Every structure is written in structure tokens, then in C-alpha cells.
């Protein structure tokens, strides 16, 4: 099972003026990704397989085609990626790592398959919860954050992923949430935004992970909403797209991370939503489906998800509502989170 491949061949080089959302093309594009083994890129992207399943499956749910992929095959693929220690690798035989473990939990939640998972893998969800909680750094200068794997690299992306997955599993008490919150505060800069580690430069991807983690922890009160909102809203460029840092180019994936952060701090109206919708629609490949980073570039499933999620957050008609904290359908997250965390 694979929904990641390289860009392959494109259809139309540029979406023409004011294209509509080509829903059917996107659905077919994602389904066909499983059939691209004749492309070198298919093999080069094996390290993203499990993330790819999450990106593709979530996009299909937001496109209101939750059954467009063979459910049993998806489930088998995910279970095959699991290791005895409860962590998941990118594909069968790949090492366990936080990034893939989070994707696995998100996919299982989206498929509403925790029970089936536990039937097939004895004590499955418990093992996963412990794999994640064991990666929290409990002392020292990095106390509170999370490592990605046994080799110990730490990063706020892993911290966010840990809280995301554990909250879906109902296992947040396994980790020291206040300590994680303390670490996030150390990553905050005077512009209100957040860096990769304490002292690091503000970056939209890190803003998303830090604000998302604070949302899950129920500590959005710690965010300086006005300052952060100012920094985030300046990411919008005249063509409607958003960048990830000052002086960088616009990109559909950064557009999502900025947009969702604005949503979490209730400042979505600080950018021009219609212009962003037009930008994302202009990144579609109207012939073969899929969405690219910028107009005229090759599409991939990663930008396809973040483009569709952005459109959903901007209330584009025909799409399922997305949960900005989790980048999953609200229908799914509301099933697992009993109203305590996802206030947005």
C-alpha cells in the first residue's frame, strides 16, 4: 500500500483563471498513487509510506469519500509497520520513529480501528502509548520535550506529535504535560512566534506544532495572540499564498500551518481568506488532480492534503470540516476527544 510517489507526470501546466475545486480528479489522483511502482520516485519515497497513508486517507475523508481506499488493506499495511516496542516505522522493516507512530495513530483513529488493532496486536494501543511516553525527556535543559527515536534528536515536531497521538488514544496522563508546556514556552520569541528549540528563529511550521501542542494541553492562554497574530498575518503575500518565514516564497503547505495557527488563536480574519482560496485552487492540476506547492509545479499527496485542509478551514463548500489542531476530520477527532481539548 502506498500513497506516496514522486511527482511523476503532470497534467495541465497551469490551472487557468478561477478553476473550481476538481474533487473527482483529486480522489482519483490519490487512489492511483498506489499504482505507480514503475516510477523511481515511488521507491525513493519509501521512508514516507505511512505518512503518505495519513495524508491520502485524510484528504479523502475531507473530500467526503472516506471509503475510497480499501480499508482492510490500509489496516494491514499500518499493522505491518509496527515494532514489538510499540513504535511504527515508515514501512515494513523500517525503524520505529515518532513521526510514523503519530501517523499510524491518526490513521487508526480515522478508520475507527483501535479495537480491531487491539484484537490483532495484543495490548496494541498500550504498547504504542508507552513507546511515545518513553521518548519524553524528563530532565536537563531539554526537559519536557520529546525525542524522535532512541538516538535522541529532539524537536518541537515530536512534542506536538506525541500530544496529538496520546490524546487520541486517551493516554495523555502517561506524560508530564506541564513539563512539555514549560519547554514550549522556552521556544517562544519576542515576536510571539516559536522556534525549533529554545533560541531558535521563528518558523511557521514550529508555530503550528507549539500552538497545536498548547491547544491539546488546554494552555492557549499562554500564547501572546496579538503579537503572534501579527507575525502570522504578515506571511500572506500579494498573490494570496502564505510563506513560512519573512522573505520566503509562498507555499501551500506553509499556508496550512499559518492558517491553522491563526484559527487556533482566533485571528483567521487577519488575512484575506478568499485570496488564499484562489491561490490554493490555482495550485491544482486540473487534468490529473492533486495540488502542488505553487502554481505550475508538480503535485504530490502532501500538498494535496494541506491544500484541501486549508480550503476546508476556509469553509469552501463541499468539504468535510477539518479540526485545525489535528489536521483530521472534526467528525473523527470529536469521537475521541470528549470536548476537553479542541476548542478552536
Amino acid at each position, binding site marked *: 500500500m502506498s500513497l506516496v510517489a514522486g*511527482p511523476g507526470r503532470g497534467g495541465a501546466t497551469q490551472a487557468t483563471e478561477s478553476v473550481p475545486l476538481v474533487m473527482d480528479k483529486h480522489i482519483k489522483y490519490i487512489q492511483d498513487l498506489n499504482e505507480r511502482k514503475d516510477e523511481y520516485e515511488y521507491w525513493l519515497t519509501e521512508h514516507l509510506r505511512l505518512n503518505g497513508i495519513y495524508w491520502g486517507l485524510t484528504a479523502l475523508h475531507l473530500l467526503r469519500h472516506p471509503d475510497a481506499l480499501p480499508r482492510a488493506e490500509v489496516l494491514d499495511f499500518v499493522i505491518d509497520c509496527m515494532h514489538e516496542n510499540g513504535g511504527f516505522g515508515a514501512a515494513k522493516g523500517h525503524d520505529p520513529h515518532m513521526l510514523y507512530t503519530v501517523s499510524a495513530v491518526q490513521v487508526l483513529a480515522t478508520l475507527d480501528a483501535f479495537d480491531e488493532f487491539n484484537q490483532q496486536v495484543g495490548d496494541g494501543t498500550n504498547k504504542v502509548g508507552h513507546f511515545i511516553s518513553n521518548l519524553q525527556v524528563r530532565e536537563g535543559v531539554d526537559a519536557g520535550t520529546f525525542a524522535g527515536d532512541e538516538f535522541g534528536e529532539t524537536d518541537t515536531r515530536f512534542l506536538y506529535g506525541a500530544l496529538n497521538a496520546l490524546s487520541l488514544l486517551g493516554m495523555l496522563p502517561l506524560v508530564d504535560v506541564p513539563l512539555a508546556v514549560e519547554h514550549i514556552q522556552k521556544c517562544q520569541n*519576542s515576536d510571539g512566534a516559536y522556534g525549533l528549540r529554545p533560541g531558535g528563529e521563528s518558523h511557521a511550521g514550529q508555530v503550528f506544532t507549539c500552538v497545536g501542542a498548547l491547544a491539546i494541553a488546554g494552555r492557549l492562554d499562554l500564547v501572546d495572540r496579538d503579537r503572534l497574530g501579527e507575525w502570522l498575518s504578515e506571511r*500572506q503575500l500579494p498573490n494570496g499564498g502564505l510563506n513560512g*518565514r519573512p522573505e520566503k516564497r509562498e507555499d501551500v503547505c506553509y499556508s496550512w500551518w499559518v492558517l491553522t495557527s491563526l484559527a487556533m488563536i482566533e485571528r483567521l480574519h487577519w488575512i484575506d481568506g478568499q485570496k488564499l482560496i484562489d491561490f490554493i485552487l490555482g495550485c491544482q492540476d486540473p487534468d490529473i488532480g492533486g495540488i502542488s506547492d505553487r502554481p505550475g509545479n508538480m503535485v504530490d499527496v502532501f500538498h494535496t492534503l494541506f491544500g484541501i485542509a486549508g480550503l476546508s478551514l476556509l469553509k469552501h463548500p463541499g468539504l468535510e470540516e477539518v479540526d485545525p489542531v489535528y489536521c483530521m476530520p472534526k467528525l473523527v477527532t470529536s469521537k475521541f476527544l470528549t470536548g476537553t481539548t479542541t476548542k478552536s
Partner: protein
Amino acid sequence: MASHDRPRVTAERTDKDLQREKRKIDEYRSLVERIETRVAEGGSEADVLDLTSDLLSRNPEYYTVWNHRRRLLLRYLEGGDTSNDASVDPNNKQASPQDYLLDDLRFLIPLLQQFPKCYWVWNYRLWILEQIERYLPRQQADSCWQRELDLVAKMLARDERNFHGWAYRRIIVDQLERLAQEAVHGEEGAGQGSRSQEEFDYTTKMIHSKLSNFSAWHYRSKLIPRILDEQEADDTARRKVLDDELDLIQNALIDPNDQSLWFYHQSLMYTIAPDCPRDSAIVLTLTNTDRVHYYEQEISRIREILEDWDDCKWVYQALLKYAAEYQTLDAGSKVYSNTDMRTWLSKLRQLDPLRSGRWDDLEKHLDLST
């Protein structure tokens, strides 16, 4: 990762293209298979390491293969391997831990240049440096860490905004400071072994070569409070630093269209606020009169910029932002009128319609709606 900056091409692939692609795939897959088999069999280091080098040069994102490489090296460094000895080197010279580790540092250089945004390469390099410190003599480890600073300077000279490069630089500096502290163990003193001043000079150099470098300005804003604390700077020295930095940024604002400069100006003004945290502060003894003075000085300097740039949104934005903050300071008389603020706001709306929702909120906040 996902595809970025790759133009959409529509041409159908010819049979020849397909054949070429198939050959590439077969070669790649057989390489992956060979590595998996050898790793499973517990093959000797030299042999498997070469195969992983080949694969990682084609695909540095293959994190599991980086891990294979780590485990192989550890097995060797910890002396747990019995299969090597004679087979390590075809010339039958035994490769030492030193050879392995230093070779790896060299192997990574072209990969960093070719894939400067790949997390795994940077992380693997840090891991190797940690092993060097564990397994090689202290002096050698010190000079390896030291040389990393030159490497990262070269990387940042090629791309002055590389996010990984700047993050890596801060990690290396932390390590060098730690080593320096360990070397003078016992001699107490704030800032012992600190590199803050050198790093500050580096940001000055980077800024002089290109003003719009948000990364360098950011780093500078973090270094200043540290340096002042380490030097145990007195009040006069601290005030001079604040004044010098404000002068520097005002001079740079000759071209006010650069948002990095405004963010730096904002970070300096942030240090003046009553609720500025101690570890971000520059002057520690600011009175309300001082604050009023700084706001008035900066607001009037920014107004002067308007004389040459009346169509730059950043100028109006800064004036309104500082006006809002100034209002909370309880200044006796104001250096601008409500009419001024209304004019600035209407210019801002006209110049920056994308963020009109934000300007609506600002209007309410400043109580300017009529």
C-alpha cells in the same frame, strides 16, 4: 520530502525513458536488498558501510539506513564485532575507530551541500561528533567541534537563511562553550568560555553583507542580553547598547520595505516594555519617563521616514503599533494626535487591503472608529 520547486512537465515518457527509469529502479532496489541481507547476516563494517554510503548518497532521507550505519559503528567502537579484523580493509591494514569516524565526517560534506534541508544528514553528523568525543582523544574531539563552525559558516555563506544551518550553528556554539567550561573547570565566573561576543560579531558581518536577513537579526536579539549579563555590564553600558542598536536599525531603515528590519526594531522596543522578561532585557533600570522618552524618540524618527516613503505600509503599521503601546504608558501629552492616527490607519487600509480584518480590530483597539 514532498516535492518543492519542481515545474510541472506534461510530456509523456518514451519507451527509452521508461527503460532508463526501470534500470535505475532495479539498481536501487537491489542495493536496498543487499544492505538488508548483509545487516541481517551481521556482515562486517567496511563492507556494509560502503553499501550504505552508496545508498545514502542516492537517498539521504532513508533514515533506517542511517540507523544501520550508527549500529554498525557502535558495534565496532564498542569492540563487539568479531567478523572484521582482517576483512576490514582490502590491504589488510586495520582501520581504526579514528579512521571510521573522521571518514564519516568527510563523507557527509558533499551530502550536506547537495541536500542542505535534510534533517537526517545534520542529525547524523551531530551523532558522529558525539561519538568522536566519546571514543577519540580529547584534543582531537575539540578540534573536530571547532572545525564545524567553519563548515556551518560556509553553508550559511551559500544560503544565508538556511534554517538547519542556523540551528546547527547554535548547537555547535553550545558544545564549544561546554568544552571551554570543562577545560577551565573550577574557575568560576559568568560567561566563562562564552562565545557570545564572537557570535554577535558574526551577525554584524552577516547583516552588513545583506540587511534583509531575519535569521541574523533574530540571533542578534538573543545574544545581546546574554553578553550584557556575562560582562556584568553597568547601567551606562546597557543604555549605550540600546541606543547603539536603535541607531543601527534606524540607519538600516533608510529602505523601510524590508520586514526583517521592522521585526528587529520591534524586538528592541519589546525590551523597553514594563513586562519584558528579565532574560530578554537590555536596560534594567528603565523608569516610566525613560520609556516615554524612547517611544517619543522612535515615533518621531519613524515619522521622518514618511517624508521619503509615504507609500510604505510598514511605516504606518509601526507608527500605529507604537502609538498603541505608548498610550499604555501614561504619557502626559502625546506627540501625535487622533487625527494623525486616523490618517495613518486609512493609509494602511489603502496600502495593505489583505489584512483589513486586522486593521478593523486595530481601529477598535485604538478607539478610532467614529
